[in-house]
């Protein structure tokens, strides 16, 4: 059978994805995380008298730690199934991928199990980050030298 004809047949029966509803859920969730992080930073500046940079650093630490604990307890993956991109795009997504990866290798020990599995999913993020900063610093050297 013709490849394109079969693909049309398949598409006829595939369920429709409610993109607007899902997009709205993700938008509200991601926005909520952003807004509450800003609120938390202001609270830290007021209560603990931190500087601006320190308060943002602490908010980052709290987000990553909270996601790690919820992933370890097995709650976070159920939340991601509902809110999808709203929880994957912020820093919470990075922490979730590292911790869930590390939980996969617990039976094989630290060196060949847990440590390699930790970066299974975010390896390409780290490589592209390092590569991008290398290229940009070369460009920056030419511009500012």
């Amino acid at each position, binding site marked *: 059978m013709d490849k394109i004809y079969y*693909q049309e047949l398949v598409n006829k029966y595939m369920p429709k994805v409610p993109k607007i509803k899902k997009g709205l859920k993700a938008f509200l969730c991601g926005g909520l995380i952003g807004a509450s992080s800003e609120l938390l930073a202001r609270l830290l500046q007021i209560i603990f008298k931190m500087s601006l940079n320190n308060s943002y650093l602490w908010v980052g630490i709290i987000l990553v730690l909270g996601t790690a604990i919820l992933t370890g307890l097995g709650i976070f993956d159920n939340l991601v199934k509902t809110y999808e991109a709203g929880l994957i795009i912020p820093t919470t997504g990075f922490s979730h991928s590292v911790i869930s990866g590390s*939980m*996969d290798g617990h039976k094989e020990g630290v060196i060949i199990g847990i440590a390699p599995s930790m970066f299974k999913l975010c390896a390409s993020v780290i490589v592209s980050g390092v590569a991008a900063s290398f290229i940009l610093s070369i460009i920056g050297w030419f511009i500012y030298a």
Partner: protein
Amino acid sequence: MLSKKVNNVYLHQNYGIAGKNENNHVLKDINFLKDFYGGEDSVETCEIKMNEIVLENLINDHTNLVIGGNLDNQLTGVSYALKNRNLAYLGIYNACATFTEGLIIGSKFCSKKDLIVLTSSHNLISERQFKYPIEYGSPNKDYATFTTTGSIGVILSNRPSNIRLECYTIGDVIDYEVYDASNMGAVMAPGAYHTIIKHLKDFKRDITYYDLILTGDLGKYGLMILKELLKKDNITTSNIIDAGSLLYPLDDDKAGGSGPVCLPLILFKKVLFNKKYQRILLVGTGALHSKVLVDQHLPIPTIAHAVAIEVIE
């Protein structure tokens, strides 16, 4: 493709065990695990334990051969359960068509002693092998199927019983250029279509010869695609049921179950309790891909085997 009639092969006792998600009043006369680990440390040892429980309930003094396969790499789930049991073993793999392949090969080795055909699968092992880590909340597409957790075995022998293996058709590898590994229904429907057409032609039968055609794990959407493909050959029938699509009736986010245990679990623990089906055609469908080749952007081939059984009163 190869079609042959079978003489003197009968199905006897079967035993099955399923996981937590399958405990929803669809299957009868079966035990369920309480969670994904069954008291073991890792999911791999849990699958081995499920196979050991099935074997302990099926092995007797007359057993001389076990033919089995499962979904994980190197078939360790079945082989490790057979250690130190003094039983000859043949491991087989055809992804989710493994059970029908086991019945076909078993019919060749069948004797007056007992032969066990065994298959198992575990949801978290498949998730980890083909998709993402276990705790990673990757959202699944609505047309994706959910690997069933369970293990089931059946005894084949020359001694008469009330279920007879009548004939079979061995399928060939079909490729309709589907690249999406989440869409197993679209991958496997053409394989089932080709095998059913060839089977009916080789044995000169009409589709109404069978009271029921039971496909393995096409899922809700794969079954619709199969019916549309059969309609092009002017074959319309209402007696095709997909075993995978019956397993999770309450879950809207799953197109159905998948894995080699779907077909035998629904056959032995649901369909055969209904006395109105006497001539049943089992069509096991399997997608023969690996994660590496899907990542290299190769299309996914499929295979389907058809086995006809007859329930004698």
